[in-house]
């Protein structure tokens, strides 16, 4: 039975790699600066569409953390994102007009690039509105973390998605290019997350936060998943199965301790709830390129009319990673 299951997972992994190869044919390389990747560089992989406004801060944030090179897939932006990225010295750019949905919401493209360029590197796979926070991130750059993970024989690092939102209607304060999004969206839910284990892949399935509280209060099973494993010491045999929520082989999903201890973990601050989202939600509704027939976006569109404010009396104001550690949203593990 166990052998059968393992073989089943192996097939799934192979299939994911095959899909990645096939969908990868849709990618055309616009700017290839991968020759400048150093042997020890931390690489960042991302898929985006019309994110020109957010890009400057995004790139600066991760450069400051010590990311060595950005590998970006541009899925048909019309707002000059591609041109902006092309002008950056540490970005390699691919573009495609193919369907985001058919590439399993970008995962196939990511797998393709990860397999080609990520082998042997620490690879961070994030969206443009996700900002990694990890223990000591204010004093130790990413290579310190990855070096420690290497020394501890850890191959993957979990970082839960933490939805950040402003107080008041989300478009009340417009986001300006280059601005720290968490100056506006600085609130989050501190302790309303539900966790269950996925028996097949071995990962945890985390739901909750403001989206569950406001948009899915009567259908919690449909609330979006918040568990993420964005940072992996990549090997060409690895594959993301569903977004960055889980990977194969399944051992990579064991970013949690089952015997009472705490493993080190971080958080992905999610700056989705900002003014650009309003227009985006409308567009996504017509494009229908998102998960489960864009159910999420349909719910947002319905509820946005009535519940434009995600803030509540018990929202926490974000200060730093230590606060998240104390709240129990992330942990230092035995990194001290």
């Amino acid at each position, binding site marked *: 039975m166990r052998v059968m299951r393992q073989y089943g997972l192996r097939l799934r992994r192979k299939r994911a790699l095959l899909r990645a190869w096939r969908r990868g044919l849709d990618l055309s390389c616009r700017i290839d600066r991968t020759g400048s990747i150093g042997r020890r560089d931390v690489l960042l992989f991302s898929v985006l569409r019309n994110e020109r406004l957010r890009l400057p801060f995004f790139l600066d944030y991760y450069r400051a953390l010590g990311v060595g090179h950005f590998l970006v897939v541009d899925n048909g932006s019309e707002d000059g994102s591609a041109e902006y990225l092309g002008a950056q010295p540490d970005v390699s750019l691919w573009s495609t007009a193919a369907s985001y949905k058919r590439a399993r919401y970008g995962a196939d493209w990511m797998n393709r690039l990860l397999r080609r360029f990520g082998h042997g590197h620490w690879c961070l796979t994030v969206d443009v509105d996700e900002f990694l926070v990890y223990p*000591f991130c204010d*004093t*130790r*750059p990413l*290579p*310190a973390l990855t*070096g*420690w993970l290497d*020394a*501890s024989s850890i191959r993957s690092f*979990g*970082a*839960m998605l933490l939805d950040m939102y402003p107080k008041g209607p989300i478009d009340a304060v417009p986001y300006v290019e280059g601005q720290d999004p968490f100056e506006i969206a600085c609130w989050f*839910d*501190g*302790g*309303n*997350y*539900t*966790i*269950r*284990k996925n028996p097949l892949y071995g990962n*945890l399935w*985390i*739901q909750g936060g*403001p989206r*569950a*509280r406001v948009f*899915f*209060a*009567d*259908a*919690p*099973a449909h609330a979006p998943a918040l*568990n993420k494993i964005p940072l992996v010491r990549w090997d060409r045999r690895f594959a993301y199965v569903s977004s960055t929520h889980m990977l194969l082989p399944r051992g990579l999903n064991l*970013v*949690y*301790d*089952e*015997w*009472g*201890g*705490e*493993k*080190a*973990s971080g958080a992905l601050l999610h700056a989705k709830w900002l003014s650009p989202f309003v227009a985006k939600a409308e567009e996504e509704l017509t494009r229908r390129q998102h998960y489960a027939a864009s159910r999420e976006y349909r719910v947002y569109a319905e509820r946005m009319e009535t519940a434009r404010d995600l803030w*509540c*009396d*018990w*929202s*926490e104001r974000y200060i730093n990673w230590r606060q998240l550690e104390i709240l*129990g*949203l*992330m*942990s*230092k*593990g*035995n*990194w*001290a």
Partner: protein
Amino acid sequence: MSSLGFIMLCHAALHRAEAVARHWAQAGCPVVIHVDARVPQARFRAMQAGLADLAHVRFCRRFRCEWGTFSLVRAMQTASEEMLCLFPKVRHVYTASGACLPLRPVEELRAWLDARPRTDFIESVTTEDVPWTVGGLSDERFTLRFPFSFTRQRRLFDRWVALQRRMGLQRRMPLGLVPHLGSQWWCLTRQTLSAILEDPNRPRHDRFFAQVWIPDESYFQTLARRWSTDIESRSLTLSKFDFQGKPHLFYDDHLQLLRRSDCFVARKIWPEADKLYAHFLRPGAEARPMAEPNPGRIDRLFGKAVERRTRGRPGLYMQSRFPNDGWENGRTAGSYSVFEGFSELFEDFEAWLARTAGLRVHGHLFAPERVEFAGGAGVFNGALSDSAALRDYSPEGFLANLIWNTRGERQCFQFGPGDGQRVAGFFAGDPNAQVSVISGAWAVELFRRNARFGEIRREAARLQRIETAHLALLRAPWVKARVRVWSLADFVAAPMEPLLTLMDEISPRAPNRPAEAPRMVDLAGFGRFLQNLRNQGMQPTLTGDFPVTEDPDGTNRPRSRPYLVR
């Protein structure tokens, strides 16, 4: 020239090792550097060239060093011999690695050692007394043979160990040696070190230790015991290991901690820790008064890290801590009280409890329509929602979250057979829970309900069935909660005593005992009501006995407000 010499073993981050060597050499201390033969020649030459201007920095013959093998001892021996031979004034020889960093000016270390001219500082403990090794091998480091590489030939290594164990193969220690282990970062006197190196039996010892596992942690530690006249069993180098046995790294943010530790040398330093290197290697650091090394704070910091990694925070469920059943180390984060039947029997129980105990008291948290948070709040600590659907998605998680979010403040809530029952199994197995049940109290609520009797009868049967199952659960052998059960009749007969017991447990330091009692529901006619249920074929078994007829004079009738016994 100084009476203190340093031996450095380097294999990576040579530029940092170079800076440290320069620091020591400029303070007048001779330095002999061993660079791993696996380091490319070009980088070695660059380091040599960088230190060429310093007369008493020497490079010794290079060996290929592999962790866990004798090659490291060989390197130390060669470097020591060179040190003793080339620098006759040296009295103490200090071993350091390329990732070491001096925390105090060399002057202080030298003065400190000058005050202890005959003492050898080498951590050296017997294998029998100290379980200091991680991963099993302690005695067997000496009694087995290790021809295979741990890092490259792991499988062969493990199999070979297992085979020797099974066959009972044992080696004998060379005569006169008692196995000792300890940190390889020692500081020995010329006398002891030369006695070890010039021992006529050295070839025999070397042969023996060449087959010992991790000999750099035992060679000098064992032999020093034989020759030294004054051993102080500790390392002067601050070095901490985590629960996997790998050294903790120090980063820029440890600067203050390291400064206040008063240790002489620390390892391992992260090679990119610019601030640490800049601070501790800055020229002209003032010598401060003699202080004993005091790594206590650092010990605590790293001790906490190990504790967090192995035990975790009780009651926390999160992305990187999701314990299996029974491994929670505390199912919830703090104590809480579950009251069953109290708010049915007393008219103002929640308000009374809140007033008396000074706490926020919830209604039925697991009520079917919505979560009845204290004060009717729609959202509670940690942004917990009052949506019943969200709560029922994971009732156990909901309760664990609530207790975690309100750490330091005891939670009290009502529970009963009308509520979702799934969570009961969770709190019954939780030693933090104090569960107090007045069995059959749901009947009081039915007694006062304005509804058809047939409906009431059906509801009574349903609630009784649920509560019977619930009470059976609370009596299960695995239950860890503090459970108390009274039947309604018993409780009504003497309500104050159990209430006071509970209050004592909830707030033991409360300044005064409750000034007032909660007001009990008027139970006139309740016995008749129960009899009616019986007459309709529904036997209330959980309420206890209530007389059917009221006493005309009212002597046996429960008082509507129990008095207090002071």
